[in-house]
């Protein structure tokens, strides 16, 4: 989905605020939420892909105005409600107020390339173009590389395609690649001529030029 989480290349956020000697957790509830997510993952009630997508589906205004561990709490709550482990009303009764959950999943067709797990379609040095696809569900293809041309710098082997794993609960293993994009390819000819962005992309995200 073209969600609020897909931040690469956006303007207007201002400087990066670095906290000196930052603690691992700022509040006791943050460390509890970190542990809760670990516990629920260990029970296989969520996986990396469904969890990430639950964060991405947060209300955009809430996403941008809440902390990282509030994202985690909201995603965990959403998944547990969606799986029927808890109901929103019982959580709200306990919390004594509103408990926000993310927007519902909007599953769409996943565009799969003609994938063979036997051999990677691209090799080191291949020129590739990122497919101009805008799936409504989960994807790990950032918007800022879509339609852009790059060079394969690594072939990383088979990994579950997140676009499938976040929804179907089953796996579709595909080759993943590291692709180098010149900064000027991404951001135009006023961009740094001596910078490049390296992005890890699954085979379905890529096509031959």
């Amino acid at each position, binding site marked *: 989905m073209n969600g609020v989480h897909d931040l*690469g290349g956006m303007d207007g956020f201002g*400087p990066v605020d*670095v906290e000196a000697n930052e603690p691992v957790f700022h509040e006791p509830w943050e460390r509890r939420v970190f542990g*809760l997510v670990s516990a629920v993952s260990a029970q296989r009630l969520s996986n990396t892909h469904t969890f990430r997508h639950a*964060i991405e589906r947060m209300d955009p205004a809430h996403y941008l105005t809440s902390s990282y561990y*509030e994202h985690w709490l909201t995603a965990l709550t959403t998944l547990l409600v969606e799986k029927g482990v*808890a109901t929103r009303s019982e959580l709200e009764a306990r919390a004594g107020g509103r408990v926000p959950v993310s927007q519902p999943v909007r599953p769409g067709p996943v565009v799969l390339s003609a994938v063979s797990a036997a051999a990677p379609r691209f090799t080191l040095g291949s020129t590739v173009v990122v497919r101009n696809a805008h799936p409504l569900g989960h994807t*790990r293809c950032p918007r800022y590389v879509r339609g852009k041309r790059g060079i394969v710098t690594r072939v990383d082997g088979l990994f579950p395609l997140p676009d499938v794993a976040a929804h179907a609960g089953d796996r579709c293993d595909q080759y993943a690649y590291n692709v180098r994009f010149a900064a000027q390819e991404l*951001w135009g000819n006023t961009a740094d001529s001596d910078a490049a962005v390296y992005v*890890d992309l699954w085979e379905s995200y890529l096509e031959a030029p």
Partner: protein
Amino acid sequence: MSEHDDDHHHPAPLSPVEVRALALEDLLKEKGLIQEGFIDAVVRAYEKDIGPMNGARVVARAWVDPAYKARLLANGTAAIAELGFGGPEGEHLVVAEDTASVHNVVVCTLCSCYPWPVLGLPPNWYKSAPYRARMVGEPRVLLREMGLDLPESVEIRVWDSSAEIRYMVLPERPAGTEGKSEAELAALVTRDAMIGTARV
């Protein structure tokens, strides 16, 4: 008294998010989905044992042992495992080497992917919107704002951790450290140098 009880008897009024976190935890406990002690054990590991001191040991070893450095750059996961580090968010590690003419920096534009076994949990700024938005689009400008003014002649490589690989930067060994021991070298290595927003 358990730590959980302490949370409930916090003297300051609870914030709405804290109330929601406690409500969820209590419900999951009632439903038998959380074992007492599990959370504290997991969290304590990241507070005490897993942090940038691990990555610093990897860097120092690479600085003193050229054969180790070669293995580290060829297969980060395996070479890092030689020092006993691995685990969640470190199943597939790639190490990017800084040189006099190349500077590497790591970001995750889509969420907050970070090499936990060597750097621990990420700082807030790494997970923040400005860092994620700007590092891919204007790395030289943002690095300068963050205190790292690279000459125009230095090539910048930005690694966006968008899939399963997690990245760590191998900073350049500073000049004048020839006499230092591996442990002394490790003490020079900062978290930010291994992310790439600083040099050693």
